[in-house]
């Protein structure tokens, strides 16, 4: 596969989805490198060499003071300017779970309120209403005509959530702004693709407006609580043994596509960059 798109996957300090996220980018055709947070902070590695950056899942700094809070502080104070430049020159950023929490705490998402340095925090991801960490698969619906480059052409998808602090919260005017800008990329839904309307467990955490993922106004910075990198092989899906039996009996091939929902989402980012003129 061509190695023209260079992806940086963060690692270290308690992050724990770096290997599979890197694997997903490799499957999506990117030239991927796992980079320790310290390597960026110490400028041994610079963002200049990359086109996509992934803030991955995990428990950065143990997440004891609010998920993603310390990582956001360290990244903002260490390489906040580099990140702003990276996005400014057309780089893509995806934040998954702990990465989403980090982007939100840096203000890079939703990126609508100006702060002292770059953007200020305007939304939050707080403790799940159910009061506990939860691992379960969710159905998601994508916003139509949304600027997000990662979900282009996707309408629904199934992905796992695995978090204790994923409840999306913001004040009403902020939510209005996000809706108006079509920045609410993904919403939790029922199995028929209708919004979950806050109903547990379809909406696993009590997020307002069923928000599962948002992007910045450019659509190039994207964060989501579900884990696309955890659905990059057909056997990751909880129902695959059933679907396989039913497909076999109906004479249908299984899996019907080599590209799973999670991989498609990552691939969209890589493909976007590969289009002429973007890299």
């Amino acid at each position, binding site marked *: 596969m061509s190695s023209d798109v260079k992806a940086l996957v963060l*690692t*270290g*300090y*308690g*992050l*724990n*989805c770096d*290997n*599979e996220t890197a*694997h997903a980018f490799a499957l999506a055709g990117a030239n991927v490198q796992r980079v*320790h947070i*310290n*390597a960026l902070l110490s400028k041994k590695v610079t963002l200049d060499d990359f086109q996509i950056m992934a803030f991955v*899942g995990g*428990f950065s*700094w*143990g*997440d*004891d*003071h609010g998920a993603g*809070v*310390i990582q956001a*502080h*360290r990244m903002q104070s260490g390489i906040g300017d580099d990140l702003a430049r990276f996005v400014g020159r057309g780089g893509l950023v995806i934040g998954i779970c702990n990465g989403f929490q980090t982007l939100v*705490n840096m203000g890079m998402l939703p990126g609508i309120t100006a702060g002292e340095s770059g953007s*200020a*925090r*305007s*939304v*939050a991801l*707080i*403790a*799940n*209403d*159910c*009061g*506990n*960490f*939860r*691992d*379960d*698969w969710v159905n998601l619906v994508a916003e139509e005509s949304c600027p997000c480059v990662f979900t282009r052409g996707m309408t629904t998808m199934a992905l796992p959530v695995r978090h204790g602090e994923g*409840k999306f*919260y*913001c*004040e009403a005017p902020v939510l209005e702004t996000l809706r108006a800008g079509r920045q609410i990329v993904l919403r939790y839904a029922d199995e028929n693709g209708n919004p979950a309307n806050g109903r547990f467990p379809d909406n696993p955490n009590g997020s307002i407006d069923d928000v599962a993922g948002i992007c910045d106004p450019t659509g190039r910075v994207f964060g989501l609580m579900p884990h696309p990198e*955890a659905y*990059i*092989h057909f*056997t*990751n899906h*909880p*129902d695959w*043994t*059933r679907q*396989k*039996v*039913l497909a*076999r*009996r109906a004479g249908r091939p299984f899996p019907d596509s080599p590209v799973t929902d999670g991989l498609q989402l990552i691939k969209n980012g890589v493909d976007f960059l590969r289009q002429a003129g973007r890299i």
Partner: protein
Amino acid sequence: MPHQLEITLKPDLPDAEGETVKKRASDYLGTTLEQVRVIHVLTIDADLTPAQCEQVQRIFTNPVTQISAFSPLPVDFDWTIWVGFRPGVKDNPGDTARETISEALGIAFKPGQGIYTSRRYCLQAHGLDVEATDRIAAELLANDTIEQWKVLSISQWRGKGGIGVIVPKVQLDHTPTAATIPIESDAALLAVSRERNLALNPNDVPTIRDYFLREAVQAERRTAGLAEPTDIELEYISQVRSDHCNHNTFGGYFRYRDLETGDVQEIDSLFATCIKNPTLALQQQKSWVVSVLWDNAGAARFDDDHCYVITGETHNSPSNMEAYGGAMTGIVGVYRDPMGTGKGARLVMGGYGFCAGYRDYDGDLKPKLHPRRLLDGVIEGVKDGGNKSGIPTTFGQVYFDDGYMGKCLVFVTAIGIMPVLVQGEPAHEKRTSPGDRIVMCGGRVGKDGIHGVTASSEVYSDTTPAGHVQIGDPYTQKKMHDFLLCARDEGLIRFITDNGGGGLSSSVGESAVFAGGCEVWLEKVPLKYEGLDQWEIWVSESQERMTVAVAPEHIDRFFALSADHAVESTVIGHYTDSGKLHIMYDGRTCAYIDLDFMQSDFPQWQFEAEWTPPALRGLCEPVLNSPRNYNRLLCDMLARPNIGSREWIVRQYDHEVQGGSVIKPLVGKDRDVASDAAVTRPVLASERAIAFSQALLPAYSQIDAYHMATCTIDEAVRRVIAVGAPWDAIGGVDNFCWPNIQYDPVTNPDGRFKAAQLVRSCLALRDACEAFGIPLLSGKDSMYVDGHLAGRYEETRKVSALPTMQFSATAVVPDVSRCVTMDVKAPGDFVYIVGVTADELGASEYYAHLGFIGQNVPQVNMAVCRKQYAAVSAAIAQQCLASTHGIYRGGLGIHIALVAMGGMLGMTIDLANVPCAEALSDDRLLFSESPGRFIVTIAPNDRQEAEALFDGCAFACVGMVTDEPVLRITGGNGGRIVETGVDELKQAWKRPFGDLI
């Protein structure tokens, strides 16, 4: 002057943490609270300027959701409860806050300065009195083993102006000293042993004295500046000789007598006879067995390029004292074993087994923690320990029995993966050489875990560390794990092992044997606080540490990598070929022992074992006529605590991180029915996977521990076969948890019987592993599962656990696309039973439900089982089974229901067609727990092929899958005995724990 920052959610935001407290106060204590809000408190014991304070406040406060102040926040309450750690207890949030503040402000904390976290709960409730509030503090919010609390009413609060500032700082004011121990007589040494909690075995004392009195030894010691043994030397000997480290019980000499026949069997070491020898023999036959019986975990071949490693541990006593910290330390601790296997393995999955008293226990006994609270804490400890380690917890089990009120069991299992070669050398091999540096990596050393639970009887003061019960720190360990893998891949690690039981004394002592000696400089060991004696540094069990041997030429690169990963590493000595364990402190020798002394002839432990067969103990089958109301019986059986759904636990555990999940712990259409086993791809580029399962059946020990063990192994084996593992390449891990087996007429009058149970279970382990061809890749034992509990008349009663063995089974699945799950897939499929149902209800759930034990304990016919398992494996490989499920606890009725619930389809079953050894009544057919059986469903098109594969096996079609989701069972006399909606069955199954999250 300390600064105290209070942080809480904005008043209009719901407080999920507070809601959980409110719900538990109602559910557990019957106390109604109107509102609970939680305030997080950061106590900064350092001099900060107002500007620095403001900066700290900005970092730790989310402006969107939180408010904060350096003074008490105006949150309304009738009562407020402050809960903070005791001095010296691991405060993980405090540590990360310290790291962050230090970095953000560019300041270094001075010795003695620190940051501590605590919580303040604001309770609103009508008529809540001080007793009820204190009960909430003591029974819900805090554990006095590790935490302190204060309760104030609103009027008291106003009077005092708040809780005040509490700084749980450790101040020892102690100059480290190495003491010498008099050894003029055995009695004198034993007296010191008792005084210092050394727990030396009286039989070992003459051997120890003899060594130190030898002329040659004394001459050598004089040159090192030593005479009588030092405390550090005796502490070392005590650690190495402990049952925990040395497995004296399993290595003991057993005289086993059958009281019925009078036959006597002498067994010199259960370990050698039943575990080591059979496994070594199997290793000769099975080329995939790579490394067993010597390292921290066993290694088996995964594919041409990788080995997987596995081990299982228990953490019972600490969890019994402090459930959360104990269980967390257990899971985080067992994860260091694969890291310390060979040159180091990457962790890829974990498993758990919890045994506790019933959640709704309301009898006379008063354990330190009520079983419900204990289980909550254990579950949460493994959750935080596992999830924050980034390792999927893919399989587990929970078993309730009153016997675990004395001491709970917490089993933790870890699997890792390593390359076959590291820089061209076998990764599973490791050794130290003279000149290699001894490097300690990870956490720092405090008084943690010194002398384990014996320390719990010490009196607390405000500044003595309450460190004997520990809290794991998965964050520090995860950083270390990532670092060590990088160091391994660069070829910088020659030897690695973890610091668990015994701390440095074990890890350095064991690793020095390879080189032939070591010299340790104890003053180099980084400490959490000053004032530890040399022996304390040497035996402390402070967590999250590994000991690594690094060649001198690799030290610079090793330390550069360590710094890159923000991991603390320290050279604390070097390996030598002196033959001596040589420990120094500030240039003075404080220990100088011949390494081979520990291999010398200490007396073997001796046990008398007396077996009274079940009939002689008066056990017999119950007199029981077949029931008539089977619908109700089936639902009530499904709702038994040892059968009901455990979804609430599974969902708290991240079982998919690392991206390799193939078969999850919950499967089926609604993803809520327990899978037989877990399947995980540890290498994402490969289509191969590891199947993993565990089983425990302690109830059978009530009749015969031999059959307890064989049935447990059989269940674990069937579980992995059911998901698609090849039947003939299964590896095992045994974990024994037994009550004390040393006879004492007063304190352990049935010790000889318990010893006989242990002998029988070990023989069973040998027999089953030989018959099924299972090498034991790893195993551990934990003895003394007994407790003395206060009763209602202020008496204490000894409570012993059922003899328990957990067995874990693993196998490599060559092609994940062939895996199957247990749920029915399609209407019109045929339902088959594999295996024979016999009159084997002794110690079954059904008998227990009716208040019986019985006598006919299930027995495994291994030759018959092997044939059936080969057929099931072949049928799965050829894709002719749509679903496969073993029949386990509760029997056919329960498991037919579970299979239907998995697919949310109905079934019609005719019991007349169930293969059985003799004519059995309907209740026996439905609830017998005969081993070796499966329920499989087969598409009409695959029927012929499947029947051919099962030729010669007990294999019969007993019914059909129906679209209408109703379970219909016809009894032996042709009448319909069960007709219940699958929905209703599922509701019953979820009844006991369905409202827990």
